[in-house]
């Protein structure tokens, strides 16, 4: 990027992403992880940090963490261990968070972003590590009733998080967004996490600074960690803002990475700017040490391989396969894959029955996606079965229904839960005898001599107006067949 005064800058971004693992119970106790329960109802002596209570590792969390690691091309070391990260806060009832310090469950990996239709990645973003840790509770500061009033909800205490730390390999806010999209896609595709930023099951912190090239020298600005971003769009905007801000501050003060240690800034989405939260990062000494209540965990190669074998296709692989197998466009394949596993499965069921990938794809991009969005339902709740949808689309392919009649049938299927056949019957759609159609066409041509005239004068499209009239007289008339008949007959007149 070149700024107005001519200096070339490079944006350096590293992301720390917390994803909440989709386990039934918490990381170290049997409490439920369901979101939205009444405050302090999903707690027990363990996650309340009561004296004498002890943590026990949740095997499902280990399983999902390994799965996530494999999806991010990480090495899974044979031994991982637990460390206590110590700090005082009322939503952390033990006074320490059980986390992983030097032996994370997932070691180095990478994520390809900007993958094009040929499957070639434009950028490989390295992942430093991913480690498991327990979440803290929530503090709700009630400012209305004075500064002393803070409510604590400990339901979230002990919820399993996987913190995925990228190398500072991202070079723009767009790349950051692509990285997050791809990461989220993989986590949701594999059922590892819901990745709902609004519910806090995905959280992003961004470390950002600039490399400014001045007279052949590279000057690095101080590193800023941005927090409080509530959507991918916010991440994009916050980074863009921070890039401009850091450049301006550098121009103003000339301060570089050597002059100032890392600071933490919050993102104010409404104001569209970051604000200073914490000045000096080095003040925190978490006094990490191995948690004596938990044993190191061995993850034998065989277990990793077993989990690997359950992974199935990655989203990128599905995208490619849909294109080659069904002949659909890269963009369309992406739309289908982005909707998740259930959507892909529904699509493939439909294609198996109707045998027309492109037509099915167009129905999925439009009618089906629109229905899902309008009704705000999960794919698994879609009211029409794959078999029925396939049957419907097959009838278009065979010419039994035209697109517009098919939409009527689709609507009827949605409204009444009938099969395709039953809906067709209910709507009184019957196929029209060809001699009957021929009669209709002759009738129309006789009644509209000016159309015949126009056609003879070279205006082929004049025929089109008769197709609409045919539909009016007999709604079951197939426009394609009508058109063919009209052309045949007009030539003989």
């Amino acid at each position, binding site marked *: 990027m070149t700024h107005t005064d001519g200096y070339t800058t490079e944006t350096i971004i590293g992301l720390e992403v917390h994803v909440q693992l989709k386990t039934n119970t918490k990381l170290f106790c049997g409490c439920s992880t369901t979101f939205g329960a009444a405050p302090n109802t999903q707690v027990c002596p363990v996650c309340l940090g009561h004296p004498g209570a002890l943590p*026990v590792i949740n095997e499902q969390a280990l399983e999902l963490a390994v799965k996530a690691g494999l999806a991010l091309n990480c090495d899974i070391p044979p031994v991982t261990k637990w460390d206590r990260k*110590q700090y005082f806060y009322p939503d952390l*009832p033990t*006074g320490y968070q059980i986390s992983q310090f030097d032996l994370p469950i997932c070691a180095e990996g990478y994520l390809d972003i900007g993958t094009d239709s040929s499957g070639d990645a434009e950028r490989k973003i390295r992942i430093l590590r991913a480690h498991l840790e327990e979440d803290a509770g929530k503090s709700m500061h009630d400012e209305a009733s004075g500064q002393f009033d803070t409510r604590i909800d400990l339901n979230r205490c002990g919820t399993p998080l996987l913190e995925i730390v990228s190398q500072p390999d991202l070079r723009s806010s767009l790349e950051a967004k692509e990285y997050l999209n791809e990461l989220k896609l993989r986590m949701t595709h594999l059922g590892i996490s819901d990745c709902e930023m609004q519910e806090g099951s995905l959280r992003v912190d961004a470390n950002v600074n600039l490399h400014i090239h001045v007279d052949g020298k590279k000057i690095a600005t101080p590193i800023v960690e941005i927090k409080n971003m509530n959507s991918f769009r916010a991440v994009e905007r916050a980074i863009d803002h921070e890039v401009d801000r850091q450049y301006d501050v550098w121009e103003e003060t000339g301060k570089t990475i050597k002059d100032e240690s890392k600071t933490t800034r919050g993102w104010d989405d409404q104001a569209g700017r970051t604000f200073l939260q914490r000045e000096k990062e080095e003040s925190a000494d978490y006094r990490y040490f191995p948690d004596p209540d938990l044993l190191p965990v061995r993850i034998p190669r065989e277990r990793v391989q077993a989990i690997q074998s359950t992974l199935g296709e990655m989203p990128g692989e599905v995208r490619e396969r849909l294109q080659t197998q069904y002949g659909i466009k890269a963009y369309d394949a992406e739309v289908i894959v982005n909707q998740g596993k259930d959507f892909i499965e529904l699509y493939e069921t439909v294609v198996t029955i109707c045998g027309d990938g492109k037509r099915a794809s167009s129905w999925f991009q439009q009618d089906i996606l629109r229905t899902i969005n309008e009704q705000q339902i999960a794919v698994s709740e879609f009211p029409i079965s794959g078999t029925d949808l396939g049957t419907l689309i097959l009838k278009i392919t065979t010419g039994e229904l035209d697109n517009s009649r098919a939409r009527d049938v689709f609507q009827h299927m949605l409204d009444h839960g009938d099969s395709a056949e039953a809906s067709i019957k209910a709507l009184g759609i019957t196929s029209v005898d060809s001699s009957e159609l021929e009669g209709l066409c002759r009738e129309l041509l006789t009644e509209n001599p000016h159309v015949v005239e126009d056609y003879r004068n070279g205006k082929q499209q004049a025929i089109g107006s008769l197709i609409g009239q045919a539909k009016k007289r007999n709604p079951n008339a197939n426009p394609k067949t009508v058109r063919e008949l009209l052309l045949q007959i007009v030539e003989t007149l």
Partner: protein
Amino acid sequence: MLDSATEILRLQASGEASAVEITQLALERIHASQSGINAFTHINEEGAIAAAKAVDQKRQNGLPLGRLAGIPIAVKDILCTTDMPTTCSSKMLQNFVAPYDATVISKLRNEDAILVGKTNMDEFAMGGSTETSFFGVTRNPWNQLATPGGSSGGAAACIAAGTVPLSLGSDTGGSIRQPAAFCGVTGLKPTYGRVSRYGLVAFASSLDQIGPLAWSVEDVALLSEVICGFEPRDSTSLDQPAPSLLSAIQSTDLRGIKIGILEDALVRDGLDESIRRAVMDAAEIFKQAGAEIIEIKLPHSDHYVPAYYVIAPSEASSNLSRYDGAHYGHRSTNLASESVTKNGPLAATYCQSRSEGFGTEVKRRIMIGTYALSEGYSDQYYNQALKARRLIKGDYDAAFNQVDLLLGPTTPTTAFPLGEHLDDPLQMYLVDLFTVGANLAGIPAISLPAGLSEAGLPIGIQLQAPALHESQLIFAGAAYQAATPHHHLRPENFRF
């Protein structure tokens, strides 16, 4: 009758005494002893009588009874109980009632034991004299000017005072064995992981272990069999069946057993001559019973206490951070306004609640541990201590390649006068010289009464065994008690 659990079982079976009668007697003696000895922080008057009635009822109805049916048992006030406060003898938890029973407590209840009360201890088990208790010192029934030892001072004193036949203590660096030695009773620290720590309020998690105290090895074996065993709620619990210990008492023939006598320990400066002699006498008794005696050295024994006093406070500093006044326990009600102004209301609440709630020794260890774990110091202290710990384990591994058991003193001295070491923490820490090794290595060890000093204070000798070999300790300990009268000695004012 209250000095033998097996005798109590027999009396009830024969109909000579009911559980209620036995429990009432125990409660009477507890009340009578409190003003002088102060072994209890809580007396479970109603609960105990109700439990005893239930046992008698069961017996009347011919229902099956647990292995500890109708036996009054006292438990250290560090074990969580739903029907009694769990204070750890700290102001911090003065009014705290746990929402659940510790696993060992559930096991006692399941075996129809009668929980008569909670026993006094050093605050959060930090100390060796029960003098750091918020509820006042416990006195030694053998000499009320002397300490009963600690931290499980109340658990040892309540037996020596004749109030109950059995108690549970916890041992992080000697906290069962040292008070057992000072009070002339038998105390066992099982292998680390043998007894579930679920519900044992943590002091130093990698060292803490629950264990029984009683007059005799036989009673210790009885209670051990009940409390040992794998439990999934404690990740450090060993996946091993509870050991069969009472059956280890069948024979007193020690032929084929090799016992290593700890040579270095016997030439230590500061070891009482009477204790040295008791160890030598014990060696002779074991030899008479057929054991082979070999001299053994633990080469790194100088490092045991220093390593212990880094590791234990480090873990403690972390374990005790949960007492912040925010969720339960003591919360300061009169925050100093200058503190609120300077630190904000939250930090002020933390600081003042912890300052008021913890005693001096607890604060000292939190500070030592916090320092030892700090960035830039942890390599010098905490990590260095972990290396020493590996060497210590190596010491024991090498020793147990040669012998089955190790014999030595439990403590360098007999019970010291109350107040003697209170202002001298280093002297207090040296009391743990012979006991911390078993905790650092995770192995089982037992302290056996071995007679009285010239001053009339009990002497304890210690046997240590390889991990999971509690049965060897019980076997040799019972043989020793079969050949000696020491465990039958009773303090003058408590002969019933």
